[in-house]
């Protein structure tokens, strides 16, 4: 009758109702206090099992949007597949200092490997170095530490490559002629800069002045911001051939703006990341024509890599007996032609 998410709503309603009732019954006296209805934690600390197993500790920023949520989930699910892996997870915060103390806490548990997706690479580097010095191999996921000696292996996506793939795709689709709008992520972070630079450089190389980037605005990876920014750009630009967006979630707002204006037949749009919703739209065809993978499955790979490193093994397919020090994932172009291969990886 109700699905799991609806149950949560009902639970919240019950708690709030009780809390408010309790407070209001005290009406004008001073004793009433706020109910505990406001905070609600997701999953708490990770599972701790006993036995002689490989202990992998995991730390990532707070899962406040689809991609980061998938990062944490994928890591947890992957670890659960192995009987010999004990997975310790602390739900992250979006604060580098807090993450540093979190990593310290994890180090105290003496794990066999430590997987870290730092909120910011720089501030987390010292604590990662310390872990390495203590002999705990650190697997650096996605955002990089400022020195190579802070990790045993780095694994991550290719932000510049997303821009390159998008430019290649759009250059081909538009025959190097037309007006492109770029909806960027959060201004001032390396992810945004690299996705933007990769695109601009490649478009320039391939098409010269044939393709113009007529508008370039950040929308902070947020769908509602994407909607607002695109609404205005649609006013300003009577002739748009393609929209390059830096993120699939954000792109949904951009798509709404274009559809609300009834201009979905005029242009094509590309995303980035590889969300399930985006891939479903690509499958249907139409406005949303491609996305470029920056797949959160990388955290599952990181757990596998961590396990191999702890066991002192390498990849079977490689001649070398140990895991390489850098693994960069490909920004695969996903279109209607190949979406069926990737849709199960969608987050």
């Amino acid at each position, binding site marked *: 009758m109700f699905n799991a*998410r609806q149950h949560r709503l009902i639970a919240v309603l019950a708690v709030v109702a009780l809390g408010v009732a309790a407070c209001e019954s005290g009406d004008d006296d001073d004793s009433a206090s706020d109910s505990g209805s406001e905070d609600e934690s997701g999953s708490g600390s990770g599972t701790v099992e006993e036995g002689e197993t490989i202990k992998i500790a995991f730390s990532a920023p707070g899962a406040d949007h689809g991609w980061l949520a998938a990062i944490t989930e994928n890591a947890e699910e992957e670890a659960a597949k192995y009987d010999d892996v004990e997975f310790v997870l602390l739900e992250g915060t979006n604060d580098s200092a807090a993450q540093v103390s979190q990593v310290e806490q994890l180090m105290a548990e003496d794990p066999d490997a430590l997987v870290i997706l730092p909120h910011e690479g720089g501030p987390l580097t010292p604590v990662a170095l310390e872990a390495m010095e203590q002999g705990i191999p650190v697997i650096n996921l996605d955002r990089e530490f400022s020195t190579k000696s802070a990790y045993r292996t780095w694994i991550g996506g290719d932000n510049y490559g997303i821009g390159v793939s998008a430019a290649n795709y759009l250059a081909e689709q538009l025959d190097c002629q037309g007006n492109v709008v770029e909806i960027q992520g959060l201004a001032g972070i390396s992810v945004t800069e690299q996705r933007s630079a990769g695109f601009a450089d490649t478009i320039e190389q391939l098409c010269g002045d044939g393709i113009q980037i007529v508008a370039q605005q950040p929308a902070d990876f947020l769908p509602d911001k994407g909607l607002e920014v695109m609404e*205005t750009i649609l006013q*300003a630009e009577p002739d748009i051939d393609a929209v390059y967006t830096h993120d699939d979630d954000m792109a949904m707002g951009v798509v*709404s703006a274009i559809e609300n204006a009834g201009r979905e037949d005029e242009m094509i749009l590309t995303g980035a990341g590889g969300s399930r919703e985006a891939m479903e739209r690509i499958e249907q065809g139409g406005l949303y024509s491609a996305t470029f993978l920056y797949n959160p499955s990388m955290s599952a790979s990181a757990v596998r890599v961590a396990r191999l490193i702890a066991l002192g093994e390498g990849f079977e397919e490689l001649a070398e007996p140990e895991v390489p020090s850098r693994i960069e994932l490909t920004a695969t172009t996903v279109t209607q032609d190949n979406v069926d291969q990737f849709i199960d990886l969608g987050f």
Partner: protein
Amino acid sequence: MSTDALDTSETAAETAATAPAARAQRRIQLQEAALPVVVVALLVAGTIADREQFLTRDNLLTVLTQASVTGVVAVGMTFVIATGGIDLSVGSVLAAAAVAGGLAGEQQSLPFLLGAIGFALLLGLVNGVAIAYGRIVPFIATLAMFAGARGLALWMSDKTPISLLQLDFVRELGRGRVAGIPYAALVFVAVTAGGWVLLNRTRYGRHVIAVGGNREAARMAGVRPQRIVCSVYVLSGLCVGIAAVLLSGRLGSASPVAGNLLELDAIAAVVIGGTSLAGGRATITGTFLGVITFGLLFNLLNLLDMPTELQQLSKGVIILAAAALQRRDR
């Protein structure tokens, strides 16, 4: 521009409580005269900078539509600030309300509307009760809700947006037009008008100002301050619920990350409009103009494809200028 003057022909007791407020209210005049000048200046600058697109009916309606979410929230915020309070939770509550609506009615519009507005009202009530009866400082109580409601939104939605594409009525409300005017813009204007009447033409509005001006005097005049204080947060919740419906309609989905930094935009609009953060004087007209000022600024700089830092910089300058004006005024 309309004068948000107070009608003081009520009972003697009430007059006693509201007289200082009425005097304060008159001081708003200068700022209310200054803001239209800013708006006109923006319109002129926009027309010069972008002859083709800016001053078209279509674009101005877009500005009004885009401003609708912040605008509706700012009306509620005006009442909160009028009592000397603050509501930092509006952005998070907006997301939580949208998600609650989406869970209540993924297929039908009515459950969505009831769910979204009802949940926003409920969270507003929690704020109100915590502040009025729990005696928690508004900044802290709504800061707690700011964090808590965002957590709720993410948790209830499982961190994924809920598609509302099947809700024809809600979609229509967000993107549809009547006689060429977007519904969202109409709702914004209607809520503003309603807020103006409530603040300036009703006993309730006078009580809100009185409580913000001098709580003790108001109490002695027979106003029940706790009730008034509690009610403004519920009112703010109502406005946030309406805004959640408008935004979800335009987005076609209920997003748990929506409304990020909305509280700051709403507070900024209210403050440059001339409502005093200390409470006791408030102007809906000013709030409306404040919202329009930021809306035009965003639209214009975006039309010209200016870098985002310039938008933030100009916003800062406007807020500072308005605050300076308020200071000299005092």
